[in-house]
């Protein structure tokens, strides 16, 4: 099978050069200290960057799921504890808000020949981060079950719910559907995904004023609620890791989860090889016929701390260029949907690529999005469980967001 990314993403087609990499990366001296989240694709990058270490260059890395919570204090000190915070669409925001990372334009010009224009994250015209992978939630489905019952791959939520209903009515599965609906960060991410599918924006243009208390917000809530009818009541505890064993136990036909987890679902080393073989990936369903996939697109990338010496900053940038070099990515194609030159998508990337081709929208990178995310995480579940109305849920979200945004100084 051939996979073509949209031209906007990957220019592609370049023959991979297999020349052995220079062992020392040409860095004269300095210290490179990487802080990142903890998953395989990032380990590969950090390990490649570490090959730049020699007598005068020190490269260390700390991969931890706590990265989001320690990055601001760690970068506020002078010199900063880490020189390279690896961030995502949401976690770059606090670093920008607190002015803790430096513009990279000069480094890109001097050392960044390998970068594609799409990799540059520009804020106010300045390059603030270098993206290297994309991520999004998408649909996982069991092609064997769908074929057996003559169900087409759902392209919209209406079709997904209809297919789930059919499987339930036929007695194939009691609860054919699962999604990351655990209150808090996960449930909020689902709301964001679905809301983006409506085409609406979260905030009034150019302000921090919330704009979800409308038909789009209602439609989003109703869609989430319709899904819960075909999910086990335990859905209130489902997060990314919680859904996978249930999928592997042959109890689900549909699930929505993260693209970065796809290779673990379909890999040969899955604990349930038959199910892994029957698992296929598709774009997140759209809210209406012809709509965009209702998924937020995320990028992962690296930034360089502000409070460090120029020597360390240069060493860090060049070590990271080694870390995300086309050679390193070529050897690890299956680990992520890379944004790096020369990447050819593997089957594990099907879902995210389909989202991209369907023109799904990016997760908003505004300074107050995190506050809304928290407010959503705390206030959607009561509606889903039936203990309050959709209007009340939207009111509660608005109240929680307004209070937080006032305290953070974004609203008066």
């Amino acid at each position, binding site marked *: 099978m051939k996979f073509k990314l949209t031209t906007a993403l990957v220019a592609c087609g370049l023959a991979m050069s297999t020349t052995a990499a220079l062992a020392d990366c040409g860095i004269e001296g300095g210290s490179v200290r990487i802080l990142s989240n903890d998953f395989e694709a990032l380990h590969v990058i950090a390990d490649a960057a570490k090959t730049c270490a020699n007598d005068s260059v020190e490269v260390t890395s700390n991969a931890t799921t706590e990265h989001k919570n320690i990055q601001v204090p760690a970068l506020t000190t002078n010199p900063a504890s880490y020189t390279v915070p690896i961030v995502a669409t949401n976690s770059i925001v606090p670093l920008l808000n607190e*002015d803790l990372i430096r513009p990279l334009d000069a480094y890109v010009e001097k050392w960044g020949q390998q970068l594609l224009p799409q990799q540059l994250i520009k804020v106010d015209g300045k390059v603030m981060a270098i993206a290297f992978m994309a991520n999004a939630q998408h649909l996982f489905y069991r092609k064997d079950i769908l074929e057996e019952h003559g169900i087409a791959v759902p392209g919209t939520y209406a079709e997904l719910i209809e297919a789930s209903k059919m499987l339930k009515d036929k007695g194939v599965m009691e609860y054919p559907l699962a999604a990351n609906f655990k209150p808090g960060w996960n449930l909020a991410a689902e709301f964001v995904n679905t809301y983006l599918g409506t085409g609406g924006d979260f905030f009034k243009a150019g302000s921090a004023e919330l704009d979800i208390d409308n038909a789009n917000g209602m439609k989003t809530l109703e869609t989430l609620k319709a899904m819960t009818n075909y999910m086990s009541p335990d859905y209130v*505890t489902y997060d990314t890791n919680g859904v996978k064993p249930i999928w592997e136990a042959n109890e689900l036909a549909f699930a929505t989860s993260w693209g970065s987890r796809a290779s673990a679902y379909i890999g040969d080393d899955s604990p349930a090889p038959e199910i892994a073989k029957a698992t296929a990936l598709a774009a997140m369903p759209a809210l209406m016929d012809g709509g965009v996939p209702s998924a937020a697109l995320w*990028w992962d990338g690296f930034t360089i701390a502000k409070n460090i010496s120029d020597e360390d900053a240069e060493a860090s940038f060049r070590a990271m260029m080694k870390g995300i070099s086309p050679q390193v990515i070529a050897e690890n194609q299956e680990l992520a949907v890379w944004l790096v030159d020369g990447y050819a998508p593997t089957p594990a990337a099907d879902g995210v690529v389909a989202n991209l081709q369907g023109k799904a929208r990016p997760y*908003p990178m505004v300074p107050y999005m995190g506050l809304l*995310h928290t407010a959503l995480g705390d206030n959607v579940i009561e509606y889903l469980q039936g203990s309050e109305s959709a209007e009340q849920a939207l009111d509660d979200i608005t109240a929680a967001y307004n209070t937080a945004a006032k*305290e*953070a100084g974004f609203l*008066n």
Partner: protein
Amino acid sequence: MTHKEFMAFIWPSLLAMALFIAVPIVSVAYQSMFVEHEQIMIETETCGPFGCTPEVAVDQDAMRKVREDSPAGRFNGLDTYTNSSHLATDEITEIVATSENFGEIRDRIMNLPFYKALIFTLSYTFIVTPLVIVFGFIIAVVVNSIPSFLKGPVIFFSLLPMIVTPLVGSLVLFWMIDSRGVVGAFLQYLFADPSLSLKASPTLTWVTLFVYGVWHSAPFAFVVFYAGLQTVPSDTLESSMVDGANRWEQIRFVVMPYLLPLATFVALMQLMDNFRIFEPIIGFSASASATSLSYLIYTDLREAETPLFGSAAATSMLTIIGVIILLLPVLFRNAREFNRKA
């Protein structure tokens, strides 16, 4: 002991208490009265792998000066305490004014985040604390009366729930009550209800958390009471037997009064601990149905990309005030007894 000697003995503790208890509390109280500066925003364009979008961003140059002028933030007085995420005074006034009956007032107030958390925290405290004392006492009396060669192993196993870290203990139970787990599947079989889920129903989640709380804390009460039982004066017990007291009467009229001060101690510790309930909510993924004051602090600090320090500090102060109110009756009672003895 003269006052001078007393001070010589106590000053290291006083210093440590001031440094590690008083100073942090004062700093939290100070923090709770400040919020972030008003953010100066600029309209920009953000470009990335998925195209360019017009966005707003914080104006760094303008903000740097504001932050340097007053690093603590913007003074907000007690407004954080009264906003809708905390005591919600305005909201309550409005609810009382616009609701038709008491039930509606109650329901609407219970929908406010602080009161929702408070009601669970208080329910947990007042249900778990007495049960812990009762069960701890029963276990202690039973263990005290079994043959001595069995005592060692029994004590060890009784203490296990307390030895296990709360988070690990709750995670173990969380998987056991899963509908595929030992306990969950057995309950479904017992009640012949395949849709029974301890994780989904709010009521059952509360019950699960209460049961967990008793399971986890009863060993603490047991250890204290068991130690106390070893010191019950045998001549009093024997004279009660001579007077014809049966086993229950011995416990009721000799052992219980003797152990009462210990019960007060356990109650104090448990009231404080239970009011700060937090780990089980994370371990049981119970936040859909149960939130506590500590959980609110956690979400303020950890869930958002930008921590809300002021809000977390205000909830912390309210928690401290809550603990003080809870402990007052027990402390008063203790002081009265102390004075009577003196």
